[in-house]
């Protein structure tokens, strides 16, 4: 069964419900053509008595808190594309069957994943993470898979799939056509459904199932301009070729998610953003790549948007990690207005080595976790607050070190210029002291250096003991005879 069909029932509604964390909010979608009719309603709205096809005024009377959204066909097509991108994790051969179906040719992936049932199970779980309800069905031909998915019934084991196909109701013949003229009529689309007049004719002839249509004489159907039905059924049965155009995933990831109600709650925003990150993760996995930078744009109600740049220290394709970084960034962000749309954009996927799995744990895991901690700390505290130290070759104590944000370029540290003892703690700036409270130990170490960069010093450094017998590092400034300063402590 090499074809898997993913059909999204109530697609006009799903583009809004997938970003909705709270399922109790009644939500309805209005048809753009017939403004006064409800096209689809979610479970909470249906429970209050709203149904598809109901007049808008009646629906509002039944559910006063009903939130209404106009249908957005462009978004529906975009969601279909997003799912096609996501499906790249199962097979490179994905085909779109507008308006609401994605077809996957899984013949070559069966062995890798371990069978049809495993793929179907993983696809179902993955779609739930994307926030999408879908009907899945497998069949040897793409059209048959579409039809089984449309009816919500899979061919049971033991029965020949062609027999199961004969039992499908007549309505599946029209399932590919949505009757929406705004959608582009592609070649494949035109050939996957028959017109409403043909369906009416067949219904009038008394045919109730595909099997009954097949039993009708072909010559008679041709005389009534209905020969296309025969061709369609032949394709579904695999008797005629059914070529499909392959979907090509875009080179750059850019997807939007419309929030059902404008909000500024970071938890609600994060919930919706998680859906996008899951999708991004699948897009990256299909390419065996990772990203180290992506941009989440928060589009305000009204106008304007707040861009949120999410920068990682190393390429990653982990949705959970991206969501954690975003949580820290969102927590700090001040939003001027409520958000109605989230848009996630990513470019330049970076090549990433495949993870080798090991019986004794993953080898690179510790390193990955270390880099993740660095990303989290930086996202919350800012880049300047998280640093690393490196020694510098300089005789002056205060410039003999530097901080570096990134991994040092060379692992070879600069050689130390002195073998003398240095304190483990250095004061940020030398502090003037009363020399009578310190006992000097040992001989002076004279440091005179820095004439070339205005940081000229002339100092005699001593080990010293304080009253509580802790050791510290003091110096006598040769430029001022009374100048005694504390510069470090031997921790």
């Amino acid at each position: 069964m090499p074809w898997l069909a993913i059909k999204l029932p109530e697609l006009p509604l799903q583009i809004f419900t997938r970003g909705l964390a709270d399922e109790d909010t009644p939500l309805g979608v209005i048809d753009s053509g017939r403004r006064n009719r409800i096209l689809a309603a979610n479970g909470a709205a249906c429970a209050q008595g709203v149904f598809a096809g109901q007049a808008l005024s009646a629906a509002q009377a039944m559910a006063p808190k009903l939130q209404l959204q106009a249908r957005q066909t462009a978004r529906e097509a975009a969601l279909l594309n997003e799912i096609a991108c996501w499906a790249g994790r199962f097979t490179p051969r994905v085909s779109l069957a507008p308006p609401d179906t994605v077809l996957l040719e899984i013949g070559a992936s069966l062995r890798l994943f371990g069978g049809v049932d495993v793929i179907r199970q993983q696809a179902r779980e993955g779609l739930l993470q994307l926030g999408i309800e879908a009907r899945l069905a497998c069949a040897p031909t793409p059209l048959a898979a579409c039809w089984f998915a449309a009816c919500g019934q899979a061919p049971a084991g033991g029965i020949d799939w062609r027999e199961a196909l004969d039992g499908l109701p007549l309505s599946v013949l029209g399932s590919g056509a949505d009757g929406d003229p705004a959608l582009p009529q592609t070649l494949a689309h035109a050939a996957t459904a028959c017109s409403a007049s043909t369906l009416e004719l067949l219904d009038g002839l008394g045919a109730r199932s595909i099997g009954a249509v097949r039993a009708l004489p072909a010559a008679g159907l041709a005389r009534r301009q209905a020969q296309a039905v025969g061709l369609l059924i032949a394709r579904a049965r695999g008797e005629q070729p059914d070529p499909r155009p392959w979907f090509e995933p875009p080179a750059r990831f850019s997807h939007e998610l419309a929030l059902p109600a404008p909000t500024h709650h970071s938890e609600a925003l994060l919930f919706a953003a998680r859906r996008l990150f899951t999708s991004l993760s699948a897009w990256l996995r299909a390419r065996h790549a990772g990203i180290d930078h992506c941009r989440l744009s928060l589009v305000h109600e009204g106008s304007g948007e707040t861009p949120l740049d999410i920068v990682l220290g190393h390429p990653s394709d982990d949705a959970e990690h991206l969501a954690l970084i975003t949580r820290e960034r969102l927590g700090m962000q001040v939003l001027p207005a409520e958000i109605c749309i989230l848009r996630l954009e990513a470019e330049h996927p970076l090549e990433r080595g495949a993870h080798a799995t090991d019986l004794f744990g993953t080898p690179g895991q510790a390193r990955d976790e270390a880099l993740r901690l660095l990303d989290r700390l930086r996202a919350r505290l800012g880049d300047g607050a998280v640093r690393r130290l490196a020694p510098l070759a300089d005789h002056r104590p205060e410039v003999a070190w530097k901080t570096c944000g990134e991994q040092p370029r060379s692992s070879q540290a600069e050689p130390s210029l002195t073998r003398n003892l240095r304190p483990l703690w250095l004061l940020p700036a030398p502090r003037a002291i009363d020399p009578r409270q310190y006992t000097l130990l040992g001989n002076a170490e004279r440091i005179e250096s820095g004439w070339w960069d205005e940081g000229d010093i002339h100092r005699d450094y001593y080990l010293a003991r304080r009253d509580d017998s802790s050791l510290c590092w003091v110096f006598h400034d040769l430029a001022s005879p009374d100048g005694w300063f504390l510069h470090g402590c031997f921790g």
Partner: protein
Amino acid sequence: MAQLLENLPAGLVWQGSHLALPPGGILPTGFPALDAELPGGGWPAGALIELLAEHPGVGELSLLLPLMRKAGAERWIACIAPPLLPYAPALAAAGVPLQRLLLVQPSSAAEALWAARQATASGACALVLTWLARPDTAALRRLQLAAEESATPLFLFRTRGMAHHASPAPLRLALAPTTGGLRIDILKRRGPPAARPVLLSWCDDTTATNDACAGTARRLALVG
């Protein structure tokens, strides 16, 4: 009764007169005198450890140098909100892998607490050193839990005055400098109260502080 107790499986019952074995692993301190007094014979690998010192510079970093030297190649040594600057050339000379040292300087006490908890809970740190301003008991308990779950030793530096306040940390040590060494009073441990303080001498340890001892001796000779 004594025979009954001896026949019990190890670790099931802890007798107050013996040192308990901490649930996680043990990390040797590098100082045999201190190891002998600590439950299990070293730092507990998954616990909040309080080190109380009057001011920075009594020898608290030298005490942890052996542990810092052994930090794994892929884990951090996190220094959160240190009061002074850890001096890179001295650390490098003491053998601390500087490329693994993470210096975190948060802008507020709340952020420092957050960073300490994140660093500990992530399990990506070999050890966490933190200087928190005034953590309350609930915060300390959360830190202790994070350390326990991720098996990361978390060293919290506080002032000597905090010795009288209760703390959920299973190990509390008070540090005071002595001439050429460090005096450690074990305030709390899982075991009988410590009879006497542990005295460490830096001269026993083969660190760079050898010179300090030599310098001290020379000076004392001159004075005497």
